[in-house]
């Protein structure tokens, strides 16, 4: 039984290490900017003693009697829409200059923490406050008092609010644009490779042609080739196509008049084609392995019935291959949605068309000191892939296992 406890403890420890960062992410995205700069996220779940400044009354307020009553929390929260402060008042800091006992010509600064219930002197009057924030300030007749700003220490309740999300989604077009761009890049680049790879996979599985085995090995081995190797020529190629298309456009339309001839060489279409090409090895590998696992009798009886390969593929194999297609689709979707490298080199970089990973990487720099915004942006980028992932876990795992585990 010791073993069982040990197992539980060790596993729990590992899970904690894995999960705490996510908690940090979400917690930080729900805090205020000042909170993220002055304390760590782990302090935001329990009441903590924090300092705030409040002013006793507004400049415009006219004091009628010689007594001012108010509530410290109301004063602190006067302009605070998202993160209201609540909790228990601990103390207020009192500062004043008093004559230096050692040096009669000089003064020293006295700083004292005045606890709840004790009277303190403010602008010649008496100030007393309670734990719930109510305060009373009595001052002599005839004084016209300016508002006084005081440092108060509050045992503050945890407060979370989605201010960062509002700021990042609504006040700024970058995140919504990046979301849309990511969808625009990912969905076609997931669908299109399938139309090409499925046929090839079938051929590698059930058709005979010279060199089939070696070509298949070649195709699969290409999965390992670093894609950076191909970037320079691909970019040159797209540049060429772009100028060719521009020339064509100038020939066929009157775009020169409106100066709209420019054809960008880094575009969504470029990304679709590139990801389609880069995704072939994995797609062919997954699909072919799956098709090979289907019963050969299917093929043989259909051939006997006189069906052509095309008919067998379209009518029998493709419908049966849906699990493998799903596996590839989710792999490809996640891969492209999260991809930074290819998008950086080959995809559009303008602010309206960047995909999310590029935006996030730039925000690491620009939002480096606005952690709440950075984390909110990161959460938004993760919502889609995590949901897709959790929903299609089974197919993802199946894909991972294809060919990695020998036997059953």
């Amino acid at each position, binding site marked *: 039984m010791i*073993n*069982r406890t040990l*197992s539980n403890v060790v*596993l729990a420890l*590992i899970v904690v290490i*894995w999960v*705490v*960062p*996510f908690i940090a*992410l979400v917690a930080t995205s729900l805090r205020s900017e000042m909170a993220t*700069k002055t*304390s*760590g996220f*782990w302090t935001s779940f329990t009441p903590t*003693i924090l300092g705030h400044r409040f002013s006793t009354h507004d400049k415009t307020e006219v004091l009628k009697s010689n007594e001012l009553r108010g509530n410290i929390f109301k004063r602190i929260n006067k302009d605070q829409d998202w993160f209201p402060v609540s909790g228990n008042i601990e*103390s207020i800091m009192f500062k004043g200059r008093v004559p230096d006992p050692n040096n009669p010509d000089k003064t020293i600064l006295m700083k004292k923490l005045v606890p709840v219930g004790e009277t303190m002197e403010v602008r010649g009057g008496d100030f007393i406050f309670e734990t719930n924030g109510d305060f009373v300030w009595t001052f002599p007749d005839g004084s016209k008092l300016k508002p006084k700003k005081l440092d108060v*220490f509050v045992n503050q309740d945890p407060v979370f609010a989605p201010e960062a999300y509002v700021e990042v989604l*609504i006040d700024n077009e970058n995140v919504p644009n990046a979301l*849309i761009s990511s969808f625009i890049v990912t*969905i076609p680049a997931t669908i*299109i490779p399938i*139309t*090409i790879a499925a*046929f*090839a996979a079938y*051929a590698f599985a059930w*058709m005979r042609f010279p060199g089939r*085995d070696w*070509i298949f*090995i070649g*195709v699969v*081995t290409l999965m*390992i080739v*670093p894609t*950076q*190797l*191909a970037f*320079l020529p691909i970019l040159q190629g797209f540049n060429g196509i772009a100028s060719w298309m521009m020339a064509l456009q100038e020939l066929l339309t009157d775009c020169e008049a409106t100066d709209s001839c420019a054809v960008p060489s880094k575009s*969504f279409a470029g990304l679709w084609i590139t990801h389609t*090409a*880069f995704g*072939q*090895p994995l797609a*062919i590998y997954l699909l072919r392995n799956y098709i090979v696992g289907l019963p050969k009798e299917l093929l043989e009886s259909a051939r006997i019935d006189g069906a*052509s*390969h095309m008919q067998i593929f379209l009518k029998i194999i493709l419908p049966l291959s849906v699990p493998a297609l799903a596996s590839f689709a989710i792999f490809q979707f996640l891969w492209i949605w*999260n*991809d*930074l490298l290819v998008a950086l080199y080959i995809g559009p970089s303008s602010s*309206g*068309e960047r995909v999310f*990973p590029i935006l996030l990487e730039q925000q*690491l720099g620009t939002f480096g000191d606005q952690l709440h915004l*950075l*984390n909110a942006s*990161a959460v938004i980028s993760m919502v889609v892939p995590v949901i897709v*992932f959790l929903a299609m876990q089974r197919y993802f*795992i199946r894909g991972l*296992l294809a060919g990695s*585990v020998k036997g059953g």
Partner: protein
Amino acid sequence: MRSIMNIIASNGLAIILTVICVLPITAIFAYSLSAPLDDLFSNLGLWLRETQGWSLAPIEAELRFAKISFALRSVVIAVGISSLYFWITNWLNSGLARVREKKSIGRQSAIIEAIQPWIFVGPALVLLTLFLVVPAFMTLGISFQEANGTLTTNNYSFLWDPKALGYVQFRFAMRNSLMWLILVPTFCIIFGLAVAVLADSLRWGVVAKTFIFVPMAISFVGAAVIWRNIFAGGGIEAQQVINGFTPSYQTGLLKSILGHSPSYNEPLYNLKFWGNFFLMWIMVWIKTGFAMVIFSAALRGVPKETVEAAIIDGANPWQLFFKIKLPQIYSTVVVVWTYMVTEVLKVFDIPYALSANDDDKLLLATMMEAAKNTWSIGGDAVDNLFAAIAIMLMITVIPHMIFNAWRLRKEQKELGN
């Protein structure tokens, strides 16, 4: 009697030529004809903006919907062209065979069967050749040229010349790659095995495994943001309060545990040399899920009899694992290890996002990026250096490629397909 090979070859050529002529023109037509759809969608976007009261600028709404429409029709056109391809080639294949070999149905079938596989694999192979194979060789060529085209090995001089641009960086990259190679796969495997073994024996194991697995869904950059919260530090330190507390203003979790003061703002991954380990950990955090899944399945595949026999013989859990289970999944461990090695060699996003300009953290992939964008050599000479480093990267993955090819070949022979 014309030889059958001739007919096959000439039919094939005819098919290829037809495809090359017809498909691009059809695509251009399809795009031009469907262009008004973009305007339709733009107007839809504007209308939605009005009726739903969005706070978007009108031109943004137009642009967005136009983009979405472009994507939609691209998908439809792509699928359409693809289907058109297969339909035309198929039709031509059987049609031409029938026309040219009227007498023997057997020969007709032979012709059709000879060409058809190439129809199926053709597009995939063409794409791969155009986008991976040919560019790879072109990059090789570029790496041996100067900007003006003369042949040279100068671009590789960072390998041997201490005064060459990239010499220092290459040494850093090699040192770091070695560290990453040794540590990241090892820890992924250790953690992956640990969770796979522990989770299978506990009731809440499935939940635990899901938690370990989720990081695989997020991007490397997202992971960088997540771990930045833990590894970064700093914070605005208030002055010490008289006879009171000094609130802890450290904002980084790990630095707080280690007792760093908030005024030392450097994130842990910026430390010289030691910072690398923090970057490596992020990758371990992401990839352990992969190892765990593979090992979980492999462990389940260990024959029950061997396990039961060992338990009867009185083996304790440690012996059970190390002497019975582990040896039987040894090949899986090797597979996971080789996969991790390749991933480590190619890793780019994590060091790029968190330490872009720091030579101390360079890896080959980030070194390439730095060569292209940061080392202002000016002009096109950059591309040649970029190509040379890319080739070095390629060389480091060649062993895995060979191993993989060998493994596949072995499988093929075993299955006798």
